[in-house]
């Protein structure tokens, strides 16, 4: 009986909390692709060699081999691109929206989803100005937002900032290597 109770307690403790929307995807698109009134989904089904190249670059590759960029256009002129990126950790998934300007630098980053448990940590990191440091970042530069905000925030918000850095790094590498 003790084992059963212990088992049930462990199950309850390790259960990942539900996902919450921090920013609606449509709002993220409006913020990160301003002025665009036409959109296209550019799907890249990566070859093994390209997946390996991406993995060698940043230690990550899309689990199903597909990277999707959403391209924004106005009067047939590209105004930028956006990618949704998921970052997993033991507390659950985070979803980021990373927008690129037409010149290839980062226009902005939004955290669109987190879990109930992670939400206050993420919000603390965002309030400390985490995403400000990504604006204008070239696609061959490593994001360093976490290092900037860590002195002002707690340990778990700092960990969230590291995860967001990681997601931005993955998006940057995908853009640099494959966005044409």
């Amino acid at each position, binding site marked *: 009986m003790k084992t059963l109770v212990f088992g049930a307690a462990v199950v309850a403790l390790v259960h990942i909390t539900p996902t919450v929307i921090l920013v609606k995807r449509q709002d993220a698109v409006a913020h990160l692709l301003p002025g665009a009134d036409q959109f296209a989904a550019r*799907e890249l089904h990566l070859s093994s060699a390209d997946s390996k190249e991406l993995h060698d670059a940043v230690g990550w590759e899309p689990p199903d081999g597909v990277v999707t960029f959403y391209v924004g256009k106005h009067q047939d002129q590209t105004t930028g691109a956006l990618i949704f990126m998921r970052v997993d950790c033991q507390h659950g998934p985070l979803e980021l929206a990373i927008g690129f300007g037409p010149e290839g630098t980062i226009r902005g980053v939004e955290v669109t989803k987190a879990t109930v448990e992670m939400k206050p940590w993420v919000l603390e990191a965002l309030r400390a100005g985490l995403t400000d440091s990504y604006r204008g970042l070239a696609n061959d530069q490593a994001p360093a937002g976490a290092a900037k905000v860590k002195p002002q925030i707690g340990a778990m918000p700092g960990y969230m900032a590291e995860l967001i850095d990681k997601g931005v790094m993955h998006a940057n590498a995908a853009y640099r290597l494959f966005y044409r």
Partner: protein
Amino acid sequence: MLYDLRHSDLRVRWLVTLLLATLGTSYLFGAWMVGLYAGFSATKVAETYGPAGEAPMAMQMPPDTTIVTERPVSMAEMGEEQHHVDMNLLVQDTHVHMPMYAVIAACLSVIALGLAIPRWAGLWIIALLFAAPWLDFAGMWLTKLVSPGFAIVTLAGGWAMALGYAIVAALAIYQMWWRKP
């Protein structure tokens, strides 16, 4: 029979009734959630757990060279998340849900032990209760790794779960509150 639910203390019958009611409610919401995120047809389940963004049975292997496709989308389409369970999420789901399913199957099995039914029927019900989650997750993994055709195994697991619960709940409620020889 290890114990007899029919003649058990009122508190035990009350506990079992509330447990069954709570599990039944969570099962109803579970079915609702399945309808929202995966669907009840083999095609829908295969789309959810099979290779992402690809027609079932196609492009399970990476292409020789990277293939780029582009299609117009509306703002609304970008806002809609295509719910797809990739390998990482399936690992997480299996890790989180299998222990919970085991606890639920164990609870229902303990109730089944108190039912006035033949020994062989008890064995079958317990087997069904534990087979259901195994079928459910085996189907998801086989759909992911082998073929979208295995989505039918996940459907079978879901229906087996509902059937196991329905049998135990119906017999327990009937025997505890109506049939009292």
